């Protein structure tokens, strides 16, 4: 069996998640990893038994697929040389921190015709995928009103890049871009946006937004994004059409839950809900991309999809910042 050679760039939480997925694929080998923090790369390489590339160039030469798992603001910095070198690229969402970054990536992909997929992993979450399929099948009739909610407490990492709006784009660009992509995928183009947010209030480790989207097909969507909820990460959605409604709430549909007392009986444990599946959405997403590369098929998420999601998120940010309605 010819092994597909993968390199991972960016070895934080998402890099680990992806590494775990590739390790389950018998026809894939992670042959090199890279991180601009050499100590982190070494620790990662030791843990997983993979080689550290000394530079991005070295990684590009050794691999077919490059998987970019860095923070958002570094996506273009790594995606552009990878595309130009002819590697196939899967790039974390959002595609870029700025529309200019995204435009450069789109142009490069067009020019070099390399397989490219923005990692909008939500499309591979079975609850969201099933909802998309039901809407597309016409099960709900004409969609009129959609509500989506995503979030939990503020994400804190060692480098604290989420707290830097210029790096992450806050809760609108980093978090609810998942829902924006799902909505664009499912309902089509957006006509205009209006939003309020805490993003520009200078409240440390608090970000929150309430967004209204009007779609060209007449549907209205409301999206709540929160990094203000100490109650833990949760999502929900509700899609109302003229023939029915779908709802999902991660706090209500829980397949497995554990609540255990700490050893020795002191203190209560945290309840951790789970949705176990044979394969997790990260595996399904990366397996899809590997299949596309191996069989020379087009990935179902295009670089333009990644661009459009960022464009929408940036319009939402502009509305929240200026108080104006932004027509797309």
């Amino acid at each position, binding site marked *: 069996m010819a092994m597909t050679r993968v390199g991972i760039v960016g070895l934080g939480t998402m890099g680990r998640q992806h590494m775990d997925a590739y390790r389950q694929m018998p026809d894939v080998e992670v042959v090199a990893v890279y991180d601009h923090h050499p100590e982190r790369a070494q620790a990662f390489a030791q843990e997983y038994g993979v080689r550290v590339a000394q530079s991005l160039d070295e990684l590009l030469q050794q691999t077919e697929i490059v998987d970019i798992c860095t923070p958002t603001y570094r996506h273009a910095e790594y995606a552009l040389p990878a595309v130009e070198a002819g590697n196939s690229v899967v790039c974390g969402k959002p595609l870029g921190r700025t529309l200019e970054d995204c435009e450069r990536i789109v142009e490069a992909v067009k020019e070099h015709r390399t397989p490219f997929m923005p990692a909008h992993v939500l499309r591979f979450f079975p609850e969201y995928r099933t909802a998309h399929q039901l809407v597309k099948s016409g099960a709900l009739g004409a969609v009129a*009103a959609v509500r989506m909610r995503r979030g939990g407490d503020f994400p804190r990492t060692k480098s604290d890049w989420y707290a830097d709006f210029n790096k992450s784009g806050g809760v609108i660009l980093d978090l609810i871009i998942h829902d924006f992509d799902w909505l664009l995928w499912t309902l089509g183009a957006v006509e205009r946006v209006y939003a309020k947010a805490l993003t520009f209030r200078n409240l440390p480790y608090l970000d929150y937004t*309430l967004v209204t989207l009007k779609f060209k097909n007449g549907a*209205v969507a409301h999206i709540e994004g929160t990094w203000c909820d100490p*109650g833990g990460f949760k999502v929900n959605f509700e899609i*109302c059409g003229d023939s*029915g409604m779908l709802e999902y709430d991660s706090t209500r549909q829980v397949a497995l839950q554990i609540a255990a007392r700490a050893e020795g009986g002191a203190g209560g444990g945290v309840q951790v809900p789970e949705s176990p599946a044979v394969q997790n959405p990260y595996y399904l997403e990366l397996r899809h991309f590997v299949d596309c590369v191996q069989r020379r098929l087009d990935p179902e998420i295009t670089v333009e999809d990644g661009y459009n999601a960022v464009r929408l998120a940036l319009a939402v940010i502009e509305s929240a910042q200026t*108080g104006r309605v932004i027509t797309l």
Partner: protein
Amino acid sequence: MSIKVGIMSFAHLHADSYAHCLKSHPNAELVGIADHDPARAQAKAQQFETKAFDSYESLLASEAQAVIVCSENVHHARLVQMAAAAGKHILCEKPLMTRLEDGRAMLAAAQGAGVYLFTAFPCRFSPAFQQMKRMLDADAIGELLALRGTNRGSNPGGWFNDPELAGGGAMIDHTVHVADLIRLLTGLEIEEVYAETGNNMFHGAFDDTAMLTMTLQNGVFATLDSSWSRPKTFPTWGDVTLAAVGTRGIIEMDMFAQYLVHYDDRAGRIKQVFWGDNIDYLMVDEFVRVVAGAERQTLATGEDGYKAAAVALAGYESVRRGEPLRL
């Protein structure tokens, strides 16, 4: 001594609930019903074992001390002004008015006649809401930053789908409750409104989908979904929810989430059976007590009704202009 109350019009389905409340109240007496539809007046009078008057004038000439107005929205102004001129205290169904000038005329009529004008906002009486307000007032989640509300329902049909009689569609029907709760919760006025509406649910000449964004005096922002988006198979009529986001946490209220789930094979559907307090009764009870001379505590005034309806009307103006509107 019982307080004598009449009901002017049963066009709004809430009249039935208020009639039940009056019938079961130890200090109230439903003295009669008038309706521009005489057959409905007869039928309701029979159902509630009271007198059918042949005109609003004759009801207002009766011994009634107070009236509850439950006509089509657009007729509130006329009936409230008639009742005020007759010296009756008034509880008016929401939305108080469909035009700002009507609202001002209603407030002036009540003030000029020296009668009470209250707005039927029973959600104020919800124990869950009042507990939420106590939590916020006690600084349980720090400084308030944002609010997210819903008052989703099913399409009531009939005159509610005729903007000439209702003054609009879903947005005027369902915005006022939560707009009022937001004012009561925060003690702040709503300064700016933006709204998006749609009609993909029923494809009629009225809005069935409505999302409002409101900005309060101190920059707190809020959204409200007042769509008629509950499908026919939904297990209940709709909901009232309000979530508060503060610097130290969040509070989520789902006002009517006090129910049993009834899988009803006989009806062929799943139903929610509510077991919480009857907020209509709590509201009617205070109305009766205030008419009898007690101090107002929770009842929404005419002014409260005016301000909440003004939010919905601003929403429609925002839709026409395609931009946020300052109140």
